[in-house]
């Protein structure tokens, strides 16, 4: 498990990949490419098609339409056991009647690896996941975190060029999740294998991934690095699913190379956008980019300024979150970090100000209803 690591991972290409169950479309003609050695995360709410996509790559679910290539070779007609893929399952899926070592040795058995070599590889894999001393135990005698490490060892022991992970940390508690995230990241760096990782947890996706594909309703909303998605979301869904966003709804306008919305609180401007003029749209800005200015002075000089009233405050230790009522009845969030807290209190009237470069005007489409904002702590 050394040698030339960067050349180890395979590429995975999905072209117009579709899965239909009867009339229901679970995955709707998605295009996606995982580059060799990349850590690609499929992120989305449950039912968004990310797990079905993963199961199609693994071969557990038949492809209805489209192409599925690994290293540019079509694999959709190969059964799972001929694809040479590694996989870690949400509920570990360890064989309860085999010892830990036998579990890890199982894929090597199937590949008819000689005994001495097998033992060496098993020992090495168990060492990598930090369980060298537990090979003789049964899975039932291990903790959840240990079981998932065994599953990881079993998935990587035969050095597959692709490793799939289906919410591998979903059944574990927060603290263990954090530790294992770091370990998965380390192992990915060591192996150079292409990882495809499914999760509904945005924080996990941000920590682990080289790139993230955000799934919604069977389609991919946006693919990009964590920074791309966070700083430059291209849809309202991405803006809201990844981190928090404050939305100002209105009608899109285009003005002198920039973007803007006519909203009840006035005309707001943004540097970026994808909504065409006249369309229903939302100006999206991250809550930490908004500053509050008291209303007793003159109107502040900023790219954008909107009147509002503080309704509620939540103290979060390193920051505080404020819910602001806008004149049109909608609500937005503002986050102030510990060193930079304004004097505004619930009940105060305030100016919300932010710069055009931090905002984007995104189409909400004719039918999209405005999602409600809440103060949920993520």
């Amino acid at each position: 498990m050394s040698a030339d690591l960067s050349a180890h991972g395979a590429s995975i290409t999905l072209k117009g990949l579709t899965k239909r169950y009867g009339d229901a479309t679970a995955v709707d003609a998605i295009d996606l490419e995982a580059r060799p050695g990349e850590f690609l995360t499929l992120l989305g709410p449950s039912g968004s098609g990310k797990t079905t996509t993963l199961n199609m790559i693994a071969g557990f679910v038949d492809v209805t339409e489209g192409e599925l290539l690994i290293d540019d070779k079509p694999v959709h007609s190969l059964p799972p056991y001929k694809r040479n893929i590694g996989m870690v399952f949400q509920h570990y899926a360890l064989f309860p009647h085999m010892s830990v070592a036998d579990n890890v040795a199982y894929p090597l058995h199937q590949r008819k690896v000689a005994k001495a070599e097998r033992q060496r590889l098993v020992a090495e894999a168990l060492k990598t996941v930090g369980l060298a001393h537990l090979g003789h135990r049964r899975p039932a005698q291990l903790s959840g975190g240990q079981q998932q490490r065994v599953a990881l060892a079993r998935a990587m022991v035969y050095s597959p060029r692709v490793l799939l992970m289906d919410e591998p940390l979903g059944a574990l508690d927060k603290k263990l999740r954090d530790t294992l995230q770091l370990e998965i990241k380390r192992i990915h760096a060591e192996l150079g294998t292409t990882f495809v990782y499914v999760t509904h947890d945005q924080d996990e996706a941000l920590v682990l991934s080289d790139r993230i594909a955000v799934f919604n309703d069977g389609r991919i909303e946006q693919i990009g690095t964590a920074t791309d998605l966070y700083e430059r979301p291209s849809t309202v869904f991405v803006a809201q699913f990844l981190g928090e966003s404050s939305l100002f709804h209105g009608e899109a306008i285009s003005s002198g190379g920039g973007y803007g919305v006519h909203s009840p609180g006035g005309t707001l401007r943004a540097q970026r956008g994808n909504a065409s003029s006249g369309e229903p749209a939302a100006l999206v800005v991250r809550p930490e980019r908004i500053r509050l200015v008291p209303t007793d002075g003159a109107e502040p000089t900023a790219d954008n300024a909107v009147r509002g009233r503080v309704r509620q405050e939540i103290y979060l230790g390193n920051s505080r979150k404020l819910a602001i009522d806008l004149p049109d009845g909608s609500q937005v969030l503002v986050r102030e970090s510990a060193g930079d807290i304004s004097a505004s209190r619930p009940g105060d009237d305030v100016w919300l100000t932010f710069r055009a470069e931090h905002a984007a005007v995104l189409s909400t489409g004719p039918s999209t209803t405005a999602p409600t904002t809440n103060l949920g702590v993520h």
Partner: protein
Amino acid sequence: MTKISVRVWRLVLAAFCALVALWLVAPSLIVIPLSLTDKPSFAFPPTGWSTRWYGNFFDDPSWTGALLSSVKVGLLVALVATAAGTATAVALTRSKFRGQQAVRGLVLAPMIVPVIVVAVGLYALFLKAQLLGTTFGFVVAHSVLALPFVVIPVTASLQGFDRRLENAAAICGANRWSTFRQVTLPLVAPGVVSGALFAFVTSFDEVVMALFIQSPYLQTLPVKMYSSVTRDTDPTIAAAATLILAFTTVATLTATVYIARRNRVR
């Protein structure tokens, strides 16, 4: 109600259950002393003791022959019914298909339909097909009766089986047959083993069908006992009954302990 009356109720319940347990277990046990009587009668309790009825049993080829036939048929039934029943249970739990309920009902029907009705029809059929008194005839007849006793426990353990393990095996590189042999089968083994045991006991114990499809050349032990009870008062039958009792008790206890162990390991 007061505390005392609750305690009285408990005592009454305990005494009642002890009596029921006695009524369940004790009657069968009287065949043991009877098998050791020294008189050629069913008089009970015996007044003197001897082991000659056991000697009689093992010296009389009609008894030993019946025992051998029963064991042979029982083993073959265990084999046939377990194989067929396991396959059926797999098909019934693993897929949804039209007519599934009908197949399930058909497989379980032999438990419900009075055996005597089937036995009479089977007699007519075997008479024509010249299968009366053949091992083949006995094996297929008893296998049908044993089928539900295999399908039920195997279905239960298949339903308790985590199918994701099969996906895990497949992704590890195991083809369907290897997956079944190395992962599925070992994990549903308790169900299959108890099914096989139930199948054996069902056949070994079966009287009604056997009464109709027997011939002078092939008679099973329960049939031999049945005709012996109706014809004469020969305590050899008590010796036979004691042997069966010992055998089934050991088999049941072994199976129960085996299943309990398996469950604990997991």
